[in-house]
């Protein structure tokens, strides 16, 4: 029975998957716009998902055996497919309306301090709002705020930005041996915290930064040093006694500004050949900030649906679906093209071609300052 396959149809595109696959995983096999946004689900974390409700989809046919539609929208990240199931994601107005609602709820108390937030440019909430958000808020009340808190020497918790996805809680529970990171209080006053204001000092605790979809958990060794879209992601490795040592360096020129785990197009830490997740240790993340610490493999293939993918890196993979014509009735909706609205980012500038450190002057339209000499090499 192990090679049994279930047929599932999502927005009129049919795929075959193994039993036990969730709707989201099946949608990711199709790729592109039919993939529901996931703010809390993280396939590498057991038990995650089901909370944020951004991934709601309509099941218009339960299965071949029981074709009745499901009465409510379901969380696609935690609903497993049945043979013959038919799912509507972007072809359902009900789903789009619910996503709009959830986006509004998530932004309700969010500070929208993107201009000073380290996550800007690679933030799942930013991406979600571009696609599903409204232009202005209908909320005219004071937003809730919290004090910033240092949890250990390397990590800062900026609870005001948190969307309570619980990913960091699962990470701390599953990667570290003591249960010391969790949620206090309840409802809209609940907060991520450590027991009791304690520092997190586990060798793997730095991974909570990578799983955080927003800028609530940030790397203190990188805070305010640079904007992610000015740094170049480069894959590198080292022989590390604690972890796999396979990382992504975020560089400007020869300088390593930040080290993270390698993430895939859904923002999840990649898997190793042995199937384990390539979490990285604190030493690799926080203490190896020189190029000589690392064996550089080459520029990263950026294929995330995110502002950073607009940087026109070498090897950029276009995440648009090939099968979009099958999605009847809907045109693919492209991400907001940041180049069209910003003077600072310009598509003709290929970041990975800039050899020295990139500088905001590089992006000025009159090309009179900065490292424009290098741009000249592009010879357009």
């Amino acid at each position, binding site marked *: 029975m192990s090679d049994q396959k279930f047929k599932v149809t999502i927005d009129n595109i049919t795929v075959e998957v193994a039993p036990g696959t969730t709707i989201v995983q099946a949608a990711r096999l199709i790729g592109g716009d039919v993939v529901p946004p996931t703010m809390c689900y993280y396939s590498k974390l057991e038990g995650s998902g089901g909370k944020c*409700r951004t991934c*709601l989809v309509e099941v218009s046919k339960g299965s071949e055996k029981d074709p009745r539609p499901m009465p409510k929208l379901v969380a696609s990240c935690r609903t497993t497919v049945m043979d013959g199931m038919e799912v509507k994601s972007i072809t359902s107005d009900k789903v789009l309306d*619910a996503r709009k609602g959830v986006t509004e709820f998530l932004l309700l108390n969010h500070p929208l301090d993107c201009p000073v937030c380290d996550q800007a440019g690679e933030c799942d909430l930013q991406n979600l709002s571009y696609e599903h958000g409204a232009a202005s808020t209908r909320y005219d009340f004071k937003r809730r705020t919290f004090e910033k808190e240092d949890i250990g020497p390397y990590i800062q918790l900026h609870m005001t930005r948190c969307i309570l996805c619980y990913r960091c809680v699962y990470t701390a529970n599953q990667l570290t041996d003591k249960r010391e990171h969790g949620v206090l209080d*309840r*409802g809209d006053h609940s907060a991520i915290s450590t027991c009791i204001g304690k520092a997190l000092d586990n060798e793997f605790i730095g991974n909570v930064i990578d799983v955080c979809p927003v800028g609530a958990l940030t790397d203190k060794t990188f805070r305010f040093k640079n904007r992610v879209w000015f740094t170049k992601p480069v894959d590198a490795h080292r022989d590390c006694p604690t972890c796999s040592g396979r990382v992504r360096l975020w560089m400007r020129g020869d300088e390593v500004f930040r080290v993270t785990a390698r993430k895939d197009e859904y923002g999840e830490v990649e898997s190793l050949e042995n199937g384990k997740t390539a979490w990285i240790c604190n030493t690799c993340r926080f203490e190896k900030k020189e190029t000589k610490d690392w064996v550089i493999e080459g520029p990263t293939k950026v294929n995330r649906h995110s502002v950073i993918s607009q940087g026109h890196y070498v090897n950029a993979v276009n995440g648009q679906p090939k099968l979009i014509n099958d999605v009847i009735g809907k045109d693919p909706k492209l991400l907001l093209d940041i180049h069209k609205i910003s003077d600072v980012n310009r598509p003709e500038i290929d970041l990975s071609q800039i050899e020295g450190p990139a500088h905001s002057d590089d992006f000025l339209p009159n090309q009179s300052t900065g490292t424009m000499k290098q741009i000249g090499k592009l010879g357009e």
Partner: protein
Amino acid sequence: MAVKLLLDKAHIEGIRYYDTWRKNGGYTAVEKALKMTPDEIVEEVKKSGLRGRGGAGFPTGMKWSFLAKPEGVPRHLVCNADESEPGTFKDRYLMEFIPHLLIEGLIISSFALGSSATYIYIRGEYAWIPDILEEAIAEAKANGWLGKNILGTGFDCEIYVQRGGGAYICGEETALIESLEGKRGNPRLKPPFPAVQGLWMRPTVVNNVETLAAVVPIINMGGEEYGKIGVGRSTGTKLISACGNINKPGVYEINFDLSVEEFIYSDEYCGGIPNGKRLKACIPGGSSVPIVPANLLFKTAKGETRYMNYESLSDGGFATGTMLGSGGFIVLDEDQCVVRHTMSLAHFYNHESCGQCSPCREGTGWMYKILKNIEYGKGKMSDIDLLWDIQRRIEGNTICPLGDAAAWPVAAAIRHFRDEFEWHVLNPEESQTRNYGIAHYADPREVVA
């Protein structure tokens, strides 16, 4: 005369204690049940047509038959005594005054389901009741009704009382299970349902206090006889906790053929509304169910008499009906302000949301803030539509039914009392000095006179 099956002995002095209980026919149901097979008991409960008294009204026999029975895995029965729904206080009465009825029901149900470790999860604020229950459990044990090899059947059973920490959400069955396991009381995602993976991932049945107490008369009289009492799919009797603007607030055992009008006005029950005031509205099943204006309370939209039972109260759906829910019956007279009332319910749900899912966590707070503005004369006309939009986007999109429970009262208040909301917006100053009074309709009893 109405049939009483649960509170028939409640008036007897000393009924709280084992000896009096036993002298008045107590524990005969256990004696009878332990001579039956577990499947026979489940069959009797099925025949009785008993529906869960915790709010959702799911058929108990069916729930019991869903319980998975994998070889070698212990199963559990959990009694939900978290009773925290505003307006509901019937379980408290049962546990406080006739605890042996519940203990008896628990022993029979544990035997039927194969639970040797049964738990009562009790609301934290009911601080004095665990002692009463534990005393009753000790008495039952001392008399051989609990412990090892009960009545020589080979069946072992212990009942443990666990106090909650004072969170409404821990009444939701999966949050209750998490809490019982010593974790944060967040509802679980379903499936898997507790019947397959419940307490410590073992098959579990969670039932309300009153549901389990009703098993005792079912065994005593037989499922079929029990099923004959009542109307249609509403069988047996129901405890109603009545409060608000009535002369005689309290817990009443009713039969399902009682009309709503009689329940409010008869001296046997609520005894009418004090000070000659007129009736404005009623929430018949605890704070989560839709509020109904007086003109839809005694008669359905079709003009038929409304009765105190599952079907009749929900006649007309949410447009013109409501629900029996958990039986928390709240009466509002003409001096009550629906906006203020809705605001205080919204505050409750905002405070009690566990905060796991974004529509409920953020939406409940937003609704409360908007309602506060309207109530205090700072509302806008567009706020009313915004409220409608928010509740619409919470309902059905959350992990557990608390989201729906927060959305429904707001929806129903706007549906039936929109004029009162608009009056608050248009008369911000006047609305701070007086109430809107009775709405656009008259008290149905007044018209007759």
